[in-house]
């Protein structure tokens, strides 16, 4: 058994996601190699070679690998896949784009977003938006896996001393070409995929008052949400509604302002990693799910919080 980790990198360096993926790889108990497929990516390859636990680094360097197009990266992975029992990708946009393509070409299943390794062929992964955890076993000759990086502590970035071996670049696809890239400007993110959500409830009292959440959302780069009661009262538009009959969100941080915590609202946000509740009523149901509860006047607390960030 040998594991190949397909590095997440930006050519000059590796990204931290690779460290978490290597950590997961090491749990398989087999030697760990890393593939760096990029353009002028020696820097990334050297960094990969320094990761604790990595035995070998394969470097495929070519212009057509410069933009991580799935067709080209997957062809590269397939070109070196022979002999590897496990192919691991970080569950990033890149990893998720490429891994299934590789798996289908190898006619094997792909296992998405593993959060733990039980054995070399058995892994746990979230389903139903994390409302259930499934442990699955693969009998395929090659296991193609994407790794949820937040579930594995990063391997040390130093201490390793692997050799870097150049591999021939695989042929480029003539059916796809890269046109351009835009780095995120700080516009309001989409509610259901936002990292942070600031949500307002009936406690805000009016559509006008709802605007006090804008500077806070701005500071946090957050999307704005609302409870059904607030939407029903006309304080916020329908498409801001979080909860049953609205949107389901699972951000890193959910700040509920003036929201009592009706069960239908909770259903929409209970999978947030961290929940903050700001409400005048210390017994509001929202405090039952909040990690941090601030009982107080939101009209003071929200501006204070905005200023403190």
């Amino acid at each position, binding site marked *: 058994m040998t594991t190949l980790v397909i590095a997440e990198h930006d050519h000059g360096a590796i990204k931290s996601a690779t460290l978490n993926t290597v950590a997961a790889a090491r749990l398989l108990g087999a030697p760990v190699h890393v593939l760096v497929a990029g353009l002028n990516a020696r820097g990334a390859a050297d960094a990969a070679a320094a990761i604790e636990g990595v035995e070998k680094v394969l470097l495929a360097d070519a212009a057509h690998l410069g933009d991580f197009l799935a067709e080209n990266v997957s062809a590269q992975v397939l070109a070196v896949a022979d002999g590897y029992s496990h192919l691991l990708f970080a569950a990033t946009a890149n990893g998720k784009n490429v891994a299934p393509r590789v798996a289908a070409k190898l006619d094997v299943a792909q296992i998405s977003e593993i959060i733990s390794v039980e054995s070399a062929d058995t892994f746990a992964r979230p389903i139903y938006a994390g409302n259930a955890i499934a442990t699955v076993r693969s009998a395929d000759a090659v296991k193609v896996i994407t790794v949820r990086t937040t579930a594995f502590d990063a391997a040390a970035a130093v201490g390793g001393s692997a050799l870097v071996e150049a591999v021939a670049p695989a042929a480029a696809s003539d059916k796809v070409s890269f046109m351009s890239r835009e780095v995120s400007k700080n516009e309001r993110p989409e509610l259901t995929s936002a990292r942070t959500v600031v949500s307002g409830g*009936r406690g805000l009292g009016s559509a006008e008052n709802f605007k006090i959440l804008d500077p806070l959302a701005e500071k946090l780069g957050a999307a704005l949400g609302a409870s059904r*009661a607030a*939407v*029903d*009262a*006309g304080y916020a538009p*329908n498409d801001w509604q979080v909860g*049953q*009959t609205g949107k389901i969100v699972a951000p890193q941080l959910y700040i509920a302002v003036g929201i*009592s915590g*009706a*069960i*239908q609202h909770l259903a929409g946000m209970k999978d947030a990693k961290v929940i903050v509740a700001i409400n*005048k*009523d210390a*017994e*509001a*149901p929202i405090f*039952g799910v909040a990690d941090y509860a601030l009982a107080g006047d939101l009209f003071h607390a929200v501006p204070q919080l905005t200023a403190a960030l």
Partner: protein
Amino acid sequence: MKSFDVIVIGAGVVGSSVAFHLARLGAKSVLLLDRGTIGAGTTSQSSGILRTHYSVRENVELARRSWDVFNNFASYVGDDDASAGLVKCGYLIASPEGDKLDPLRASLAQQVEQGIPLEFLSAQQATELLPICRFDDAAVIGYEPEAGFADAYMVATSFARGARRGGVTVKENVNVNRVLIENGKVVGVSTSAGDFTCDTVISTQNIWTPELAAWVNVPMPVVPERHAVLALECEAAPYTFKMPVYKDLGSPGMLYCRSYGGNQMLVSEGIVGEKLFGPEAEQGDIPLDYVAEVGEQVADRFPAYAEAGLASSWTGVYDVTPDWNPVLGRVPGVQGLIVGYGFSGHGFKLSPTVGKVLAQEALGLATDVSLAPYAITRFASGNLLTGKYGLGAVS
């Protein structure tokens, strides 16, 4: 504290109202229990309609007193920040020529006699209130200005909050295993959080009442029925907060509709829904054929809605009794057991007064409205409270 005077099982809007009123009426030691959180059962599914229109006069009494509470909610519960989420848009009910006309006339006449503010409108006047609707075939149109809709969940939590402030102990996420009875008398309840003693239990368990029936070995007829609610969007004809709730007795499904969010229409059929095999408040499937069927009825009344889009839909469950009216009062053969269940889809609008009269009964006080017509014995004796409209929540 393990010992209480009164234990209330079920913290939906009715149970919370009971607990609130027990404290208000001076009960010192009250426990309110729910296997989930307050209002997490069928309360949160309520469409929140408030009206006093009923063909059963006792219901009118319960509804009118309850309306006064909703209309003055913050001061009634003694909390400036409390809100029922009330939209006081009035309630319009109309029937064409047909079998609903006599019951409508009779019910309206009875309401007038009971002193309910009520107007009889011409098609023209009705159109002024609800311009998106057609009234050309209406034989009678009744309008109650003191009506509208509110938020059942907010009311439940406000009552619960007031109950707590009044000294009630509220325990959520506690499962009741059974009611403890000795020699035909209630002595307490056994729960997942231990046993509690008391000599009075008030059960407001809605579709879960069969559990109580099994604990005390008394038949309590109730059937869970699931109803679908649709939210329709029609940009050409928004249903605004100023437009009244509307009950369409001309439609086969006896539709009711109201504003949702100030622009969409919330609509549901008033008649018999889907009987469930067991108590189950989860969302159910709403087939497209059903949507089309209700949509046709809506379009018939609201012409612009022929092109409406289905914005969202959900289901709610009613606890339906044989006569579509609640069972209120003491349970014969089990001393100390009082029930309030079977609201059959119209419980929220009665919840403030139901809570008060059940609390009064428990404390040995005279009840504001007589419980006798709602006795559980009526099913055996045949004195059903069947409304003039037949089956359905306008009883």
